[in-house]
């Protein structure tokens, strides 16, 4: 056996129906089944969840923090995408 440590899994919990799954931490587990079970035992002891996703941490593809400017800054000046950009008369402003 090469690797002695159990792989790391990232845990995402939906706190109630209608909400997104949200990252809440991680666990170590040898397989997906146990990862789900211990995620339940670790992260939902106080009724924090109704659904759990686990993803093996090395399977997550993350954006490069160094690429932050080219990835996220270009959205900065597209202010016309936001509803507040448009001034409408008060009577219809709830639109």
């Amino acid at each position, binding site marked *: 056996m090469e690797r002695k440590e159990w792989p790391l899994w990232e845990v995402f919990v939906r706190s109630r129906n209608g909400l997104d799954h949200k990252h809440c931490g991680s666990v170590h587990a*040898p*397989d997906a089944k146990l990862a789900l*079970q*211990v995620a339940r*035992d670790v992260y939902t*002891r106080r009724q924090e969840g109704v659904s759990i996703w686990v993803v093996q941490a090395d399977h997550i593809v993350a954006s490069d923090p160094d690429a932050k400017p080219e990835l996220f800054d270009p959205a900065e000046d597209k202010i016309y995408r936001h509803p507040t950009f448009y001034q409408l008369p008060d009577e219809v402003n709830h639109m």
Partner: protein
Amino acid sequence: MTTPNPAPLAAHLEYVTRLGDNALILGQRMSEWCGHAPVLEEDMALGNMSLDLIGQARMLLTHAGKLEGQGRDEDQLAFLRTEMNYRNLTLCELPNADFGRTMVRNFLFASFQVLLWERLLASHDSELAAIAAKSIKEARYHAQHAGDWVVRLGDGTAESHERTQAALDYLWPYTAEFFVVTPSDEAAAAAGIGPAWSELEAAWEAAVVPVLNEATLTVPARTPFKSWGKFGRHSEHLGHLLSEMQYMQRTYPGAQW
């Protein structure tokens, strides 16, 4: 050896006490793991299972106290009976030994509990039916968690296989006690309180044997071995468990905590 004939409790009370003591004694055993599990994740899992069992014990012993009608509450029943008045299956009181034995025991017991709770959903004792409705979810999770572990450990390495087989060989004879016919069981069944445990044998084997096979374990043959915990005649282990568990209540009689 013949079936011991203990002080008679009303069949109904006896039935509920057995359920309560199973949960109490196994919950106590499981709580010994807290802080000592193979990984932190299992510390959490074992803790949850122990809490489930202690919760079941509280409801069941409270109910037993009411049935008994002598004003005893969950704690008086849990901490102030003498050894022979505990009615748990001997299997529940056996020491944890290693993680393998703990998981095999949990699997054998939780699989039995699942069957019991399923039937108790329809108990004529509405209190018991309500307890079953809550507890069955817990037992299903315990059986799943422990069953998965039995497969991992049975199939895993040569060492784990050997340890798990040894655990099964040690524990299996105690499971015969689950199904021993008792007069109070028959009476409780006749009154619609719950199934006679002896009725559950085939269903239990059908639930556990495939998992043991998947775990590449050899299911031991039945032997003449008998244990009698549910009749109040226990192994040597229960006395030690009780002397620890009862310590505070025995040392400070009547104190509030």
